[in-house]
């Protein structure tokens, strides 16, 4: 049980990419470091494209992940394939790392349920995005309970924003995770804003991480714009969880550089100066500076990588735009394992409605 009220803060990289303390042994793997960087760049390029697609009416509302790439990439890199992700809705970065296809993410935000039917078997058990705030934290505890009941050495990761920590679901999840020592890691992406409500009026606690203490386990803060810190602390927390040593809450200190969603206009409620200041701490620039200082990155590699990422994003857009319309029955046929005979008439009515509309269009 947690008996310390001390909340630690972990950071390796300063905002200019300077190393603040020695890195753990895993950081000897340069390919891993480069991979983290590339994944953040891919996420940002995809994110920009998704926003552009929304602006031109090709997808619906989208929740940008701009500025928080390190949170998702750090978690995604720390997870094992057989762990389970129970995400919220600003989780493009980690979902892509898990194996969700970018075209599936576009399909989901583009208004098609098939976008949550992930094709890659590696993500077959991951939950789809969760829109109702903090409810996913409890689902993650259920997943973790199943792992514990079956004696598996796997762990569950669930994410949420800072606003979600105000919800009963979040606190009930922490409570049961502590009481049962569940193999679950709670990641709070504290991006400072819950739509228009800033962190300081969301909660009077000095940190959100300390909410774990009331539930009897450790909470900690990391620099959420430092992918190395997020990766390292999540990796350790997951290792403890898989070993049966219980849950951890990690509060990633980041900043939502974009709007809450494409339906939001953040300039209505927050000053430009604050956003400008936040750009100085964003995660990609500092990681690039670090890699360059390590002599394992240069301009030509940068250009080549951007080209590759852009091609990947474009391929995803093409795949998304090439998806055929779903059959009309599909909005009925997955509601139950088998559409009940008692509701057969409603199914026929829907098909009739569809053909009537089709006839009107002809």
């Amino acid at each position: 049980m947690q008996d310390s009220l001390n909340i630690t803060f972990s950071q390796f990289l300063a905002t200019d990419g300077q190393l603040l303390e020695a890195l753990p042994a895993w950081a000897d793997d340069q390919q891993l470091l480069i991979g983290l960087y590339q994944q953040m760049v891919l996420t940002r390029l995809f994110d920009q494209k998704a926003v552009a697609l929304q602006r031109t009416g090709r997808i619906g509302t989208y929740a940008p992940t701009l500025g928080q790439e390190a949170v998702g990439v750090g978690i995604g890199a720390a997870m094992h394939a057989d762990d389970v992700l129970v995400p919220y809705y600003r989780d493009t970065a980690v979902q892509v790392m898990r194996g969700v296809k970018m075209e599936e993410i576009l399909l989901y935000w583009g208004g098609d349920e098939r976008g949550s039917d992930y094709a890659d078997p590696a993500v077959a058990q991951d939950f789809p995005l969760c829109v109702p705030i903090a409810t996913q934290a409890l689902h993650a505890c259920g997943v973790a309970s199943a792992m514990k009941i079956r004696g598996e050495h796997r762990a569950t990761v669930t994410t949420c924003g800072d606003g979600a920590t105000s919800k009963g679901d979040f606190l009930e999840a922490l409570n049961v995770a502590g009481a049962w020592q569940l193999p679950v890691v709670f990641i709070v992406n504290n991006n400072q804003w819950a739509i228009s409500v800033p962190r300081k009026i969301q909660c009077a606690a000095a940190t959100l991480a300390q909410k774990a203490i009331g539930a009897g386990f450790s909470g900690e803060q990391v620099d959420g714009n430092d992918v190395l810190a997020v990766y390292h602390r999540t990796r350790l927390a997951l290792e403890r969880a898989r070993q049966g040593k219980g849950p951890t809450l990690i509060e990633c200190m980041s900043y939502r550089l974009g709007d809450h969603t494409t339906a939001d206009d953040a300039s209505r409620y927050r000053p430009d100066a604050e956003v400008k200041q936040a750009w100085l701490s964003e995660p990609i620039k500092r990681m690039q500076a670090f890699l360059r200082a390590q002599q394992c990155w240069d301009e030509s590699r940068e250009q080549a990588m951007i080209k590759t990422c852009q091609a990947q994003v474009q391929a995803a857009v093409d795949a998304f735009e090439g998806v055929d319309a779903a059959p009309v029955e599909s909005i009925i046929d997955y509601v139950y394992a088998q559409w009940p005979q008692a509701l057969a008439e409603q199914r026929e009515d829907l098909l009739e409605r569809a053909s009537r509309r089709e006839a009107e269009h002809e």
Partner: protein
Amino acid sequence: MNEPSKLSLLEAVNLALHRAMNEDENVVVLGEDVGVNGGVFRATQGLRDAFGLKRVIDTPLAETMISGLAVGMAAQGLKPVMEIQFMGFIYPALDHLVSHASRMRNRTRGRLTCPLVLRTPMGAGIRAPEHHSESTEAMFAQIPGLRLVIPSSPARAYGLLLAAIDDPDPVVFLEPTRLYRMNPQPLVDDGKRLPLDTCFTLREGADLTLITWGASVHESLLAAAALSEQAVSVEVIDVACVKPLDMDTLQASVRKTGRCVIVHEAPKSCAVGSEIAAGLYERAWLDLQAPIVRVTAPDIPPPLYRMEQLYIPAVTDILSACTEVLEYA
């Protein structure tokens, strides 16, 4: 062979839980006080000893958590059977039923599913404290993707609960407290499931159809017996499976009798009875010889127990409605 022992509805629930847990190791029971204590009504008695701590789980006291947890467990392939202590405490659990359990299959196109069961005692009539007497089944009947089952006899409790646990979709299973210990019946533990989408015709008749469910089945059968002494032949149907609703059986009965009274303990407006009446007017308008009459609680909260009998439809109320419908020219 020995006579099968007589079991109450409550004992039948317990028997079905034992059987389901024996048959499938994925079945887990969770809720407040379901372990050592065997549940506040003792519906889960003996499960902890038989199946252990890992499968019979006392949860912290938080209903939202119980239902949210069940969603996660079910998505991992377990079959959680959760108990909420009383229907009056079910509302925090509603969010996870509405927003997640009932939609998971659809929103992932079948990739993840939620084969869970939520059991809770329902209804008034046991002189319980405030918030222990609700019948709010209509709230659940509105939720697509959910099944809603209300047994009214030991045999139906047994067969329907086994079927509910088997079912690949989420099922809300409401147990009328007033019937829990009433009229034990011989029950064989044969594992036979009952269908989850048909009504049960408890008594056949030619002159009038009494449609009911839950604890009101008891008074409806008494009313039908009383009417038969006056040579009126009443058909009594226990809806039992409220969602999806077997309108075919109800329609066939009303086409035969031409007269219909609906009896339920929930408040009158926007109730399951309203849905049944609307469906019958749509499907059997020309066969009706009298307007459909509903005998229900009024649109008020269940009163504290001194007045609760006034809230619950009694035999005399049902007889009065039947007389009105039978005399309609």
